């Protein structure tokens, strides 16, 4: 019997260019529309700022970087807590089909509530500042991570668990060698969307619930008709979200999962 050779997909330099360069075009198109609108309609600076003015914000405004790091710091803490609690609780819940069914509807309901709905209550509990924002981030990410982890654990074929039992494996060994790696694809996608939702939650919470951070900065800028700061802040939020998703979590997800052949590589 001969080996089935592994398909080696050679990526030509051109296909790399296509993969990374082509998606930049829509960004330029958007900037093109922006510039055209300014050229044609010439709106007041407080309505729509010029691109160059926006580009200068990170270099000219002293508050820019402190606000970026304040927001990222809150995201980091809230997400970390959500990841640890969500994955642990998800594994425990996923191990029992009965418990997963029992808790499932509540989690779906909690997921459906927009995180903003909790902001007034969170302010009452934690006051204005970091604790409140971290709580809102945790709330935005936890249920997603939890639900995905439960799903991942439930999707692991029972025969893998059983085959290790016949080899004399302990519960803990099966948990570490079957349950967790088997659930990992779903855990990773839960973490990925959890981080995305956590980031949105930071900004939303900071609008009214903090004295610093990108969300608060944008909110204040409106009072001074500083549209350049608002747009610069919004673009910063978008770029950070893009980098975290495509630069950090997507490659991590691909590296672990594609090697095992669990999902098809999505080009």
């Amino acid at each position, binding site marked *: *019997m001969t*080996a*089935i050779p592994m398909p080696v997909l050679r990526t030509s330099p051109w296909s790399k260019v296509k993969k990374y360069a082509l998606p930049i075009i829509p960004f330029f198109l958007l900037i093109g529309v922006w510039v055209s609108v300014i050229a044609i309609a010439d709106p007041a600076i407080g309505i729509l700022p010029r691109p160059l003015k926006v580009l200068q914000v990170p270099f000219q405004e002293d508050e820019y970087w402190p606000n970026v790091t304040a927001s990222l710091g809150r995201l980091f803490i809230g997400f970390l807590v959500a990841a640890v609690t969500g994955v642990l609780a998800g594994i425990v819940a996923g191990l029992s089909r009965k418990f997963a069914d029992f808790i499932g509807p509540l989690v779906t309901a909690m997921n459906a509530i927009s995180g903003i709905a909790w902001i007034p209550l969170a302010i009452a509990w934690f006051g204005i500042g970091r604790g409140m924002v971290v709580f809102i981030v945790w709330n935005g990410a936890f249920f997603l991570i939890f639900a995905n982890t439960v799903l991942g654990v439930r999707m692991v074929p029972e025969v893998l668990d059983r085959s290790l039992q*016949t080899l004399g494996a302990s519960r803990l060994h099966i948990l570490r060698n*079957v349950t967790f*790696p*088997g659930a990992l694809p779903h855990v990773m996608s839960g973490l990925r969307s959890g981080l995305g939702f956590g980031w949105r939650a930071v900004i939303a919470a900071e609008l009214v619930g903090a004295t610093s951070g990108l969300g608060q900065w944008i909110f204040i800028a409106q009072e001074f008709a500083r549209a350049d700061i608002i747009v610069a802040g919004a673009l910063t939020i978008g770029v950070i979200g893009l980098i975290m998703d495509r630069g950090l979590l997507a490659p991590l997800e691909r590296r672990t999962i594609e090697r*095992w*052949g*669990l999902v098809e590589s999505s080009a």
Partner: protein
Amino acid sequence: MTAGNAEAASAASATLTVNGLSHWFIDPQSGSTVHALDDINLAIQPGEFITVVGPSGCGKTTLLKILAGFLKPLAGEARVHGSLITKPGRDRGVVFQELAILPWRTVRRNIGHGLEIQKVPKDVRAKKVAELTDLVGLRGFEDHYPHQLSGGMKQRVAVARTWASDPEIILMDEPFAAVDAMTRQTLQEELIRLTVETKKTVFFITHSVEEAVFLGDRVIALAARPGRVKASVQVPVPREGRTWETMTHDPSMAACVEEVLGLVRGEHEATLASESHANADAEQAQET
């Protein structure tokens, strides 16, 4: 000689015994009772290779699950060396019908998994894994992941993993059903060699009469609805050195196949010939 008497006479020395075993399921949709196994009696001797053949749905997998310790029978009992089977154990290795090796472990780490669980020192483990990798013809693929292997190769990994942990008894549930016909014959010949060398007690399930006769010291024919032992047929040729080449030219083997086929065919016609053929076709279609 009736099957029942033979089983009773040899029960004392047996490795695996099944007494008055019955099991049934409540069908979740219709609420009706599916009588899967009815009063099964078996005695499997040390080093014996038993094949169990019967139409699909006759309770073969249910019987294996009970022997493996995954399912508690509703009546009767199954014993290993006289002690009641209540849970899975390292003394009974299982090769499942479904693919049961871990996709996130390489061939080497899958084959050595049982030894790793037993905390066998690394160097001893490596030696044993290398030996078994050779034995099942997977040398050169040690660092491949399962998704890089064909269906037949994956099943070899599963077989090697079970053998590596050295259980006394091996339970196999249609392990080659999803493999193409050519590969299947090779795997069957390898299995003969492996079991003759290691003298393991094997309980091998199949729905193919040819496979049952080719592999077994003794063939148990099961009848369906409810599943019960119809007959136990001794295969007239010793297992040592059996190959498909010699088997097809041996008239006593051909006669044995005919005999078992006669027993099982009655079942097929009486119950669900079309269904089991449809299943066999589906399995052929899955060839990888």
